[in-house]
Structure formats: C-alpha cells, structure tokens
C-alpha cells in the first residue's frame, strides 16, 4: 500500500469589511449583511470560481436568533450553487479563528477542496431579550394549546409586578461569575502590575501602526468597501493616528473608580466581518493561485474564568508552538488580539516569566520575550476595533499577507476569549 500523503490546507487570501464603531455607519447592516459583504469582496478580489466553493464555515458571537446559521445564509444570499453547504460555530472571541481552523482541518481531512471561512458580528444588531420569566410564564399559555380568557387573566396576575418584564440591556458578562470582561481585565492589570502608562503606551502604538498601515495602503488588499444607504464605507473608522499618551491620560477609568482601564486602552464595540479563502494545496495550484500561507499548528486551551479570565493565550500559545515543533525564537511575527492593553501585557509578562513556565506550564524555562517590533506590526483590536467573530479571520489575513511579503517565515497568533478560553495558531509561508 502506498504511504498516505498528508494533504495541506493553504490560505489563498482574505478580505474584510472596514471595521466601524458600533451604532454608526453599519447600524442598518446585521451580522449576515456584513458577512455577505466580506465574502462577496473576497470572491471578487480573488475571482473565485463559484463552482469551486464546497462550503462556508462561519464564526459569530451575537448570532441572529432568526437565522443563527449565518454560513448558510451567506451562500443563499450570494446565490452560490445550492449544494454549497454551511455551518456556523461559536467560540466567543476566538470564533473567527475557530471557523478558519475548522475549515483547514476539513480540507486536510479531505472533506472539502475549497472553503470560505471567517466571522462577523454586529453589536448594533444585538437582540434585546425578553426576560426568561416572561417566556416561561407566557409560553405555556400561548403556545401550549387552547387557552381560555380566564387563562389569560391568570397570566396577567402571574406576571405582576411588571417591573421585571422590562428587556435588559445585554452585557458582556461571564455567565458563571457575573463579572464583566473589563472588570476581569482590570483585575488582571492589578494582579500582574500593569501600569496605566504601560497600557496607554501600548494603545498609542496600536493606533499609530494601524494608521500607518491604512495611509500606506497596506490594508487596501484586505479591506473591501461596503455599500450602505448613506453611501459607501471605505476604511476603518476607529483608528486615531493622532492619539498620544498625553491625550489618553485624560480619560477616566471605566471599570473601577481607581482603575487603570479606560475606553482608550480597551477594544471598542465594533461592527464588521472578515473572510478567508482556504483550499487544498493541489486545488489552489490547479486553479492557478499562489498560496500565501498555511497552518503549521493551532491550539485551544482554557483557564478558570473566575481567576484570570483573559490569560488563556499564555497557555494556548506555548501549546501551539509545541505542536508546531517551534520555539518563540523561531517565530518571525506575533499577532495578538488586543481585547485590552492590560490583557496583552499580562499575557506577554507571563510568556516571559520563568516562574509561570515552571508552575503553570511544567517547563523549566520561560517561553520567551516577544520583541515589540514583531508584535502586532499593523496594530490590533484596540485601534482597528473588535467585531467579535471577525477578529480571528482578520488576524489570519493580515499575517498571511505579511508572510507572503517574504520577510518572515512564521507567525504566531494568540486570542483570548470569554469563558477563560485561549486560542493560538502558527502560520508559515508557503513557498
């Protein structure tokens, strides 16, 4: 029997919508509309033959409850052949990366030859939910068979007092601890001794690098314009190239009175979508594409959400490096999702800590110090924004393009997510 040869999934390219502040330009577009725009942009940019696509794999956090399988809706909206199936996954803020790695795994296993993967989120279209008490009381009467007027009267009596029937504003709070993510990050800043100044300096770099990337046209290949009723949106709207530590210092802490986290050094609520085109290497070559990058490894880990909620990447990144057979020294570029400057700096501190390596990872030496010059070279989620499900695919796209440019061989990705999750992946250039 001939030895089985491992198929490799390659990244052909990626495209995203501009990332826009929530409740602004994209308010009329829900998560599916944004996803449509990103996938359409991707297919146009890379002239993807419509017959070639086998599947769409999508990630999202705030899923539209009327049509939670966004992936399938994209295929239908874009009029792709009806055989193009779709699935939607959620893994909190790692949903986008999850979708991309899932598609890569399916291709490597031979399920697909070509898939589009990515993610989208529209905080502007988050749904206000009726309280569970209302649903549980009203449901059985209205949906549970024939109800008499007396039943309805009784129902009203049961629902009184009506004050707890008001819809609640959704919060990004942990279900088990009730802690809002910013509070968790505030706690991490304190525990890992990350100063306000360090956070603000990191924030300024993120904005300056993102602004430079936009003005130099570095993102032109990655960002597709989106049409709205009020006109087209061409570029990311949250990046402030003119910000400075002095300006940021004026902001007041938002999660604790004497805290260090501000609206400035946290990632903002954002609307957007991002899509990546993946193929088996053979298929890509057969269709005449020059693949940019491939996954060398990926890893998902978790920490106790009641401890340090956003420390997951400090476990996942070493695991991905191990799976890739590499050390941090072998890595050319590091791209980390910036939920909060405090969270990135906390994770970096732990990656550089011998004590953490010994006690938490069971290894003798620290993972290593990340050179700031190689970290988030074109800014990150603080400057660009963070549409939850889209961020992972944005990072894959930016790093794949960076590797293709030829200066670096490998890139390490790290994403923290709700529930104490950590996600990481190692990308390598495809020659």
């Amino acid at each position, binding site marked *: 029997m001939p030895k089985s040869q491992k198929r490799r999934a390659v990244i052909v390219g990626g495209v995203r919508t501009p990332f826009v502040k929530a409740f602004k330009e994209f308010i009329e577009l829900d998560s599916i509309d944004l996803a449509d725009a990103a996938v359409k942009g991707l297919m146009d940019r890379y002239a993807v033959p419509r017959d070639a696509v086998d599947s769409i794999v999508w990630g999202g956090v705030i899923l539209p409850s009327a049509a939670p399988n966004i992936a399938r809706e994209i295929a239908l909206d874009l009029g792709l052949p009806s055989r193009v199936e779709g699935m939607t996954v959620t893994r909190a803020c790692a949903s986008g990366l999850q979708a991309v790695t899932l598609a890569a795994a399916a291709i490597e296993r031979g399920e697909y030859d070509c898939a589009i993967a990515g993610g989208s989120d529209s905080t502007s279209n988050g749904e206000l939910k009726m309280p569970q008490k209302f649903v549980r009381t009203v449901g059985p009467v209205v949906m549970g068979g024939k109800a008499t007027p007396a039943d309805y009267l009784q129902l009203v009596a049961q629902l009184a007092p009506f004050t707890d029937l008001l819809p609640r504003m959704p919060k990004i709070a942990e279900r088990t601890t009730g802690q809002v993510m910013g509070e968790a990050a505030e706690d991490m800043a304190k525990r890992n001794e990350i100063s306000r100044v360090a956070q603000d300096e990191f924030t300024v770099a993120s904005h300056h690098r993102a602004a430079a990337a936009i003005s130099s046209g570095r993102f032109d290949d990655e960002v597709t314009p989106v049409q709205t009723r009020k006109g087209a949106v061409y570029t990311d709207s949250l990046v402030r190239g003119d910000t400075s530590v002095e300006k940021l210092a004026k902001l007041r802490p938002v999660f604790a009175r004497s805290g260090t986290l501000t609206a400035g050094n946290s990632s903002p609520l954002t609307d957007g979508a991002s899509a990546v085109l993946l193929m088996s290497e053979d298929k890509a070559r057969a269709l005449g594409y020059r693949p940019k990058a491939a996954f060398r490894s990926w890893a998902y880990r978790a920490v106790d959400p009641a401890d340090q909620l956003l420390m997951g990447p400090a476990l996942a990144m070493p695991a991905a490096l191990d799976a890739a057979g590499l050390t941090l020294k072998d890595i050319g570029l590091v791209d980390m999702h910036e939920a909060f400057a405090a969270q990135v700096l906390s994770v970096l501190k732990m990656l550089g*800590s011998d*004590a953490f390596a010994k*006690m938490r990872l069971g290894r003798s030496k620290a993972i290593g110090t990340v050179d700031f010059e190689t970290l988030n070279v074109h800014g990150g989620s603080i400057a660009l924004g963070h549409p939850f499900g889209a961020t992972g695919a944005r990072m894959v796209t930016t790093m794949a393009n960076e590797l293709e440019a030829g200066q670096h061989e490998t890139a390490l990705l790290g994403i923290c997510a709700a529930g104490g999750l950590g996600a990481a992946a190692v990308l390598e250039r495809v020659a």
Partner: protein
Amino acid sequence: MTDTLVELSSNPWFRQGIKQLGLPIPTPQKLARTRHPRVERPLDGQCICVMSETGAVDRALAETVIEAGANAVVVNKSRVSSHWLSTGEAYGRSVTHATLGDTSSEGTVQGLVFDATGIDRPETLRQLYDFFHHWLPRLGRCGRVVVIGRPPEDQSNPSKAAAQAGLDGFIRSVTREIGRKGSTAHVVYVAQKAEARLKPLLRFLMSKRSAFISGQPWRVSSRVKSRLSGKLTRPLENKTALITGAARGIGAATARLLAAEGARVICLDRPGDEDATSAIAAEVGGVPLMVDITDPNAPKLIQKAIDEDGGCIDIIVHNAGITRDKTLARMKPEWWDQAVDVNLGAVLRINEALFPSVLADNARIVCLSSVAGLAGNVGQTNYAASKAGLVGYVKSAAATLAKTGGTINAVAPGFIETRLTRAIPVMTREVGRRLSALGQGGEPHDVAELIAYLVTPGAAGTSGQVMRACGGMFLGA
C-alpha cells in the same frame, strides 16, 4: 439537629443584648462550612498573613497559599524570599511585605501562618507573642491559625525540644481565645525533608473544610513512601472505599464526602438496617453490603464482596461502634464483651483479613475513636477501653502499612450532633456542646471532612496519629 444558641447568636441584637446585660451565656459563632467537592482555589481572594523568618518551609507555604487563590502578606525582618516572589508572579498574586512593627496594613485577615521551625530556645518563643499580639486581633470570624514547627521528639538539642513542645501549649490556648469567633488553631510539626508534604495538609487546615477541627498537633513525616500527587480536585478518583456503619450519622456523611471526591463506596451496615443502607448506597452511587461485623464470618463475607466488586480496596473507614454504658459494678459481662468486640475486636479481625490480600498499595485506613473514650467517663469503662485500644493499634499498624505506602490513623470525634447524642438528657447535652473552644457541637459532616482528608493520597505524611474533630474540646487532651 439545630443548636438554638448558635442560631440565636447569628442575630446581632441577641449578641448585643447578652453583652449589655452581662449574662454568662456564650454566643457561639455559626461556623462557615464547605458543602461542595474540593475546588482548585479554596482560599480565593482571602488575605493570609504569614510570618516567615527562616524560610525553611517557604516553598510549601507560598505554593499552598497562592495556588489556593489567597493574597499573602509576608512578615519578616529582611525581605520576601524568592519562593514567594516567583509563585506570586506565576499566579498573578504579588506578595506584600511587612515588618513586624509595621502597623500600616489595616483590615482583617482570614488566616495567620507562623513558621516556627527556627525557634530553638525558650527566649525565642517570644516571637510568637510579638507576632500574634499584633495580628491575632485582626483575624476575621471563622479564621485560621497555623503554627509550623519541628517535632520535639526529633530534636537532639533539649532547648529546641522544649521550645518546640511549647508551641503545642501555645496553640491550645490560642484555640480557646479565638474559638468564640469560630476560628481554629493548629500546630503542624513537620520533619526535616518532609516539607513538601505540608501542602495538602495546609490547604485542608486553612480551608472551611476544617471548620470543627481545632487545637490539634499534627505530625508530618516522610516515613510513608509516596509520590506526591498534584491533584487538587477529585483526589479519590479510581479509589474504592469500605465504610462500616455507613447507614447514618458520621458513616453516611463520610460516604457522601468520599463519593463526592470521586471514590466508589461500599456501604456496610448490619443486617436489619437494609433500608437506610441501600438509601445511602443509592445516593452515593455505591454498593450496600449487609454484614454483622461481630460475626466470625464477617471478614470472609467482606472479602467475598470486595472480590465480586473488583477485587481491590484502597480505603477502609472503621466507623461502626456501639455504647453499652453502665458503671463497672453493674455492668453485665456480655455488655463488656459486646462493646469491646464491636469497637476494637472486629476492627482488628477485618484489617487482618484484608491486609495482605485485597488491600491495595498506598491504602488509607481510618478508625473512629472517641474523645469520651480518650478522656474516660463514668459508665464507659468498656467503651473507653475499646476506643483507647484503637490508639495503640494504629500506632503499631502504621509501621506495617508504611511498607506498602499505606497509612492508618484514628479520628476521635468530640460532641457531634447525631442520633447517639440526641438521646442524652437536655442539660447534659447543653454542657457537652459548650465544652469545646468553639462553644458548640459539630456535625457528622465535620468529622467526615477530617476522615476524607486523611484518606486522600496527599495525606501520606500523617500516619499512626489520633486526630480529633472536637472543636477544641476541654476534655481528654
């Protein structure tokens, strides 16, 4: 069974009223207990103050306190050792340093730990005064005090032996002073090179699991061979336990706790108690086993049941016991025989039958003794003889078991609210309850927590000992 005085004392008006009127009525603190299985960070967010001058046990201390989720204040003259710094860094809980005279840090702490391994002369015992004089008033309700020393019996230097033995008396008195607030105190004598074995014990003593255990001198040695397991949760996974007298009271509470930590439990009780035994066995997902332990065939029946169950057993809890109280002059001979046979004879027979054949390596055996037995009591000559007999037995058997990594200990409950104590006349019962430093009786659950600790793999440092779950009882020291 509820203790009315404890319930009333949770009411601030009642406490205040008693104080104002100057009534000689104790107001015992309702104890904080844990009702869930072991968690990774039992001390999450607590503040623990540690006095560490020599640094001899710093590694175990730092890893326990910080891994368990507590924030540490380290008090000493010089500076915080590298163990504290690196553990603090790894877990994101940097350690605060304070000097002894430093009065700036305010607020209450939940635990005080004192490394007394360096105390070697009567004069240096003064360090205890200096530290606790300042910090003991800041210990919050249901707080914990642990003093760590070296076993006096291991000391060749008489002066050090004296100073170290002094820790025991100090702790017993502290127990009395802080008992009203529901706080407990212990001295842990750790042998040289057994420091790493402190971790599971400290974690237990500092947690709410040890709510009713106080004033105990613990001994931690490396005599029993054991590989340290890092498992903090579900430590009894893949272990099988046999509990005698499991139908109710302490036996049932132990069955619940061991099952909650992952053990498979064989619930043994006497024929005639099928209903209660099957109920507890069903509740904990275990197996009921109806055997009269005084039956000469009992060891054989138990062995057969274990063979059918899987052939191997890791934990035995000898909990079944009876009282046949009468003053010696009036006691019938069969009452003497019954008490001694159930409480002592049967334990020996069963252990001897199981020792070589079905008992696994690293076995854990606990025999239930009794504070009343140790202290002596009118009308309990038979009972006390049997319960004190167990003390000698575990000392001797510990040496045999150590060869295969096993431990055997006795647990002596104080006043516990069970069916046995409910039958005591009301006035006697009231006195019995208030005779402890905590000013109240314990629950079967409290004794079960001590048993559950002693049967974990991590408790390898403690063998041949008698540990009391008595709330710091004034009797039978």
